[in-house]
């Protein structure tokens, strides 16, 4: 049934009333969480993420061994949420590598990531007070093709004998190829992706794995900026509401009350 117009010819699309309400609600909840965190009313804490804590360890190990760190954001473009999360962590890793004079090799598959990574690593080197550590030739677009990219990364990991292999971004079938290559090179491996069907490969082959949202909140975890942590608090509130809706909806549907389900599909 078409919904009535809200302004002139403008109307909510049929079947999108509930998504519209949820969209506004989510924005409001997160905005409120940021506000309350900034005012100090709530002081949320993110639980420990061993994989992120291990980044320092990984960079330290690479520094001791005199071998490079390899970082890849995988196959996605700069609009992919996993790549964005990977880039947040990259700025931290790049700064650490610059501080310790450790070589950092960054690889990616989609060309539009290149200018972002260049700026990020350059700024990290400058922030560490070591602009001379910025090496554009170590920021490598290998190929837009999945397995050509995989072969290139495998080659870099094996030839350069990387001491730390950070796989944080969007990965598909090549995830196991990267992880095995890193294992053969004797690297400490930290991986993270939201692709549920690649997580098992990372879990079995890597030392530390960020599963799904852990990758996405890693940037906030590293920075510990209150407003960023506030958004995670808001996200958890939305999760609680979602769980409540699922439980209530399941019970009501099971007892034969289908109106709640229809209301959610409005």
């Amino acid at each position, binding site marked *: 049934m078409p919904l009535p117009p809200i302004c002139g010819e*403008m109307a909510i699309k049929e079947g999108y009333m509930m998504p519209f309400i949820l969209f506004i609600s989510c924005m409001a909840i997160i905005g409120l969480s940021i506000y309350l965190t900034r005012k100090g009313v709530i002081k949320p804490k993110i639980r420990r993420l061993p994989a992120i804590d291990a980044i320092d360890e990984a960079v330290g190990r690479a520094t001791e061994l005199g071998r490079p760190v390899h970082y890849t954001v995988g196959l996605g473009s700069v609009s992919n949420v996993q790549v*964005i999360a990977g880039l947040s962590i990259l700025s931290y890793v790049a700064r650490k590598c610059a501080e310790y004079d450790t070589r950092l090799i960054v690889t990616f598959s989609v060309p539009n990531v290149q200018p972002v990574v260049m700026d*990020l690593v350059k700024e990290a080197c400058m922030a560490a007070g070591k602009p001379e550590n910025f090496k554009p030739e170590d920021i*490598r677009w290998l190929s837009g093709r999945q*397995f050509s990219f995989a072969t290139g990364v495998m080659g870099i990991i094996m030839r350069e004998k990387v001491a730390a292999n950070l796989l944080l971004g969007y990965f598909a079938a090549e995830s196991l190829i990267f992880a095995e290559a890193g294992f053969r090179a004797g690297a400490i491996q930290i991986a993270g992706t939201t692709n549920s069907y690649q997580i098992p490969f990372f879990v079995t082959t890597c030392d530390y794995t960020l599963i799904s*949202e852990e990758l*996405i909140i890693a940037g906030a975890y590293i920075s510990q900026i209150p407003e960023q942590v506030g958004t995670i608090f808001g996200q958890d509130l939305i999760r609680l509401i979602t769980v409540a809706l699922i439980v209530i909806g399941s019970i009501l549907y099971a007892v034969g009350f289908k109106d709640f389900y229809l209301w959610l599909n409005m």
Partner: protein
Amino acid sequence: MSRVIKRDIPILLLTFTALFQAADTLIEEPTLNSYADSMRSAASIIGTFALILSVTLLTRLHTRRLQRRRTIIESTVLLISLWIPLVWGLWQFSMGGVSPTIEPFVQGVFNGIVSPGDSTIYAILAFFIASAAYRAFRARSVEATILLVAGIIVMLAKAPIGESIWSGFPILSDWILNVPNRAGVTVIILSAILASIALYVRMMLGYERGWMGRAAE
């Protein structure tokens, strides 16, 4: 001024575009929907220009290596295989209107080199899975044992030989995939979506700036 250009304008553009596209998804209004359509096409075209940048940088990197007499063979092969099909395909398309998808040389390179290469690297996964499974699948704990047993049941169910060994494997496998797997994957998908919402809000408010090539303060 520099901060406005480097920080504020990109964030404003991002916020406007994101909210505009969200409005297009939720709201029915012909002008809005039409502009959103055009915006998506524009995004597609802009993304393609980044390819030109990356090809240029890759060429520069390998040309420098050749000049320094490092990785001569690899860089030569890369530059030849990058530029020759590209130039030839563009030439054929611009002069004769021949689409690269049917141009014989480009298709020959694809079918003869690229396609078998892709298949070969994908096939390597079979070996890697075997070695990773052999090395890592240990019943170290209760959870690991459950994972191990579930994995074995599903593997046997998906291969015809499993049903020959015991007809119960497919039934058990269906239960594993339909119940615990469905619950687990749904949670992972939902968590990722919720985290993405929070990430996008952080981006729109300027707290997350990795996508701009800027570190967080």
